[in-house]
């Protein structure tokens, strides 16, 4: 201790050295090293599965480390629970908001730490006032009395942030806090993060968006395969350098869609209509083609896809696959006809999250695998093996549970599950959301490869570069209508934006002028 004070420099708020953690045979973290100084914002970047989330959970007290040094504010610590880490001054904002839907917004912020009046009774007026003060500091208005149920993801994230701020923590860890936020909300979050930094707190910021890392952070630590790679001052490094360290190789091409031979019409949608949701939607997807549904979030893209697949009803219109009309509201018929659907929210809709990888991959084709109505683990493994191998799912065994995998690997498992049905048409909603750069390129290569083999692909994406890079044709959806159909050479950022916003001013001319 005396040596530290003699050194004069501020001791780091958080100090992790060679921290390791294994789950069974899988080493999630081999040697995690991270040093965060007070009054700085430290970015932690790495591919999915690099061990960032495991590192965060060790700091938060969710997991206990197997080995290594863990110091907080200069003291050796070993948290056995989240309550301990909280008490020591650590606040964590998780990737997925963790709220109590039945309870009020204010209670979600103050649960377990409610302001009290005489007799240790909860002081609700005080709690609401403090919540409102927190929200006004964040520049938002959320009624602290309303239940958390029904809040948008962005509002839920804001509640998490308000909670973290109210903890008055010395160390604030944010695990991809901006994934669900819009531009103005991100700016607001950054303003708050900077003011916390200026108060002398230490912040750890995990993100896949490099523009944000470079805009916000002072230092950046790169992790790869559960190991520490490097730490640099943000000012002294570049995106190319960091990406190269993250993937351990140069990223050649981010969106490598190879032109494929376009075949017959696979999907034909005619005059699809659902009051208040989408109107007069007609389009075709041919074999070997990737067609993107672009547009603003909330324009109705996912709803169209769900109706085509038969999950949601529609009032009028026709959906045909390979010339055969499909009944509505019958996903099973759509699957039998050769349609596959990878939803946006893979945890909730795409995976049996508690199931093994083999079970997940084999789940759609189990009627084909069973023998006298019985399904063996062996049959599942046999069917799942080749697909998992082809998609390079990084796991030690097929009997691992899906919940323990990284987001990128989960996406691959969902893809493997559907590809095992040998579909004619693949509908994929936000194929690379929450997936890091390296895996993104792999997913893109895979989609391109599948199209090359004659699969028809309908892709929904909010990432413009992905749309422009991958799609042979772009259908731009605006307020439930297809506002424009653009061929690959017509599709530019300007033309897509113009159609997506339905702006009256001819934006593309302004921009190109």
């Amino acid at each position, binding site marked *: 201790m005396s040596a530290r004070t003699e050194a004069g420099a501020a001791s780091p708020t958080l100090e992790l050295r060679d921290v390791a953690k294994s789950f069974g045979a899988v080493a999630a973290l081999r040697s995690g090293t991270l040093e965060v100084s007070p009054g700085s914002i430290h970015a932690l970047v790495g591919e999915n599965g690099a061990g960032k989330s495991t590192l965060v959970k060790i700091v938060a007290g969710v997991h206990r480390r197997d080995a290594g040094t863990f110091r907080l504010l200069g003291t050796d610590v070993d948290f056995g629970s989240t309550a301990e880490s909280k008490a020591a001054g650590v606040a964590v904002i998780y990737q997925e908001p963790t709220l109590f839907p039945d309870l009020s917004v204010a209670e979600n912020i103050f*649960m*377990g730490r409610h302001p009290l009046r005489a007799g240790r009774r909860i002081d609700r007026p005080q709690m609401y006032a403090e919540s409102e003060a927190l929200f006004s500091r964040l520049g938002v208005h959320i009624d602290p009395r309303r239940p958390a149920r*029904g809040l948008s993801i962005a509002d839920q994230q804001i509640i998490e942030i308000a909670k973290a701020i109210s903890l008055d923590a010395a160390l604030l860890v944010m695990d991809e806090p901006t994934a669900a936020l*819009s531009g103005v909300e991100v700016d607001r979050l950054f303003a708050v993060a900077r003011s916390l930094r200026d108060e002398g707190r230490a912040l750890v910021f995990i993100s896949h968006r490099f523009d944000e890392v470079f805009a916000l952070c002072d230092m950046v630590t790169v992790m790869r395969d559960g190991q520490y790679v490097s730490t640099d001052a943000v000012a002294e490094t570049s995106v190319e350098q960091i990406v190269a360290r993250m993937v351990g190789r140069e990223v050649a091409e981010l969106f490598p869609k190879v032109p494929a031979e376009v075949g017959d019409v696979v999907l034909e949608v005619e005059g699809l209509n659902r009051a208040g949701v989408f109107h007069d939607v007609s389009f075709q997807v041919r074999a070997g083609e990737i067609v993107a549904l672009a*547009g*603003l*979030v909330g324009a109705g893209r996912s709803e169209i896809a769900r109706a085509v697949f038969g999950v949601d009803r529609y009032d009028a219109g026709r959906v045909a696959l390979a010339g055969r009309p499909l009944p509505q509201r019958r996903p099973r018929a759509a699957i039998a006809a050769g349609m596959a659907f990878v939803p946006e929210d893979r945890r909730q809709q795409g995976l049996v999250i508690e199931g093994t990888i083999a079970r997940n991959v084999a789940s759609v084709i189990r009627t084909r695998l069973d023998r006298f109505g019985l399904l063996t683990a062996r049959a599942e493994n046999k069917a799942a093996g080749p697909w998992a191998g082809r998609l390079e799912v990084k796991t030690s065994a097929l009997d691992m549970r899906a919940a323990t995998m990284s987001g990128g690997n989960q996406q691959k498992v969902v893809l493997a599950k559907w590809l095992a049905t040998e579909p004619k048409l693949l509908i994929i909603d936000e194929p690379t959301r929450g997936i890091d750069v390296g895996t993104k390129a792999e997913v893109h290569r895979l989609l391109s490869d599948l199209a090359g083999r004659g699969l028809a692909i309908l892709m929904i994406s909010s990432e413009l570069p992905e749309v422009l890079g991958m799609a042979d044709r772009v259908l731009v959806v605006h307020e439930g209508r297809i506002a424009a159909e653009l061929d690959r050479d017509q599709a530019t950022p300007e033309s897509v934006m113009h159609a997506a916003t339905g*702006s009256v001013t001819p934006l593309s001319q302004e921009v190109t002028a």
Partner: protein
Amino acid sequence: MTVATGAPPPLPDDAIELAPSALSPAQRVLGGVLRSRELAVGLVLLALVAVTATQSSSFVFGSDGWRSLLVNPSILILLAVGQTVVIVTRNVDLSVGSTLGLTAYLTGRLFVDTGLPTPLVIVVAVLAGAGLGFVNGILVTFGRVPSLVITLGTLYIYRGVFLSWAGSDRINAGDIPDGFSSLGTEQVLTVPVLTVVALVVMGVVGYLMHTSRSGRELYAIGSDPDAAHLYGLPVARRVLVAFVASGALAGLAGVFYVARYGTVSSNAGFGIELQAVGAAVIGGVAIFGGSGTVWGAAIGATLLVTINSALPVLGIDDFWQRAVVGALILAAVALDRVLALRQERRLVAARDLDLGPPPPQAEKPSTSASSGSAS
């Protein structure tokens, strides 16, 4: 993804100031009354009593009728209150019927075999109930087996202990000291003592659930157990306490049983656990935890007991009496579902109102940027 047709797209990039989502206080009060399950069930109860009274005025106004109307629900109220504390944490306690039987018999035996003063007997019986609840709680929190299964097991075990202890023996009214059995008949301002005690217990538990940190934590645990762990809430301890409370209240209900009926045979409290769960559900306690109040459960318990005595007066035969109770439970669940859907829609709508006008200028379709675009 939310539906945005005809409405402004969610969260445009430069929606500058977001409107407050606060409903006006008047709207909130009105909404609260309309959505108040306690009030709705209370009105059904009053209607039932009123209709029955028109058929037989002694049902309410006779001195016996009045007394029965008030005293009969007291045992089920205690059990429903205890059940609510457990259900709110996304658990269930099916062993309360056996706990009641066992503690009722214990109460009788203490009077027969020992000369313990009445207050001490009551304390011992309540502690015994708490002990049985503690066993449930330990098994649930450390066994990592759903409480439905655990307490189904202890339901049979506790009943088995009772049977092998009591055999064909029974406690008779003559064994009970007069001072104690008069508790079952004494009144305070025409309200039976047992009812007063039950209502006081309900009031205290309800007050604690609403105004103490640990009470609110019970709701949080039931609302989302995983989130409760991440919050660092003492989940195991709270759930354990909930089971102890349920057991203690079942023990008190056992004491009530002796005071009310005087005799205890080996089928005392048989099947009453399902009535307790039914009362809580009818009273608006969500079976998956996180919401509901003990007042609601108590009103639900009163309604269930009153139906059983009212329907014969109304000349409805035995089969239909049971069917009515079943229909009531199904109706309560259906109502919950409808209200939940409506509330969800309303909350989403309230949220979308917050989003402000669409941007005047064209915006890019997404806010995410590819790597390499910024450096």
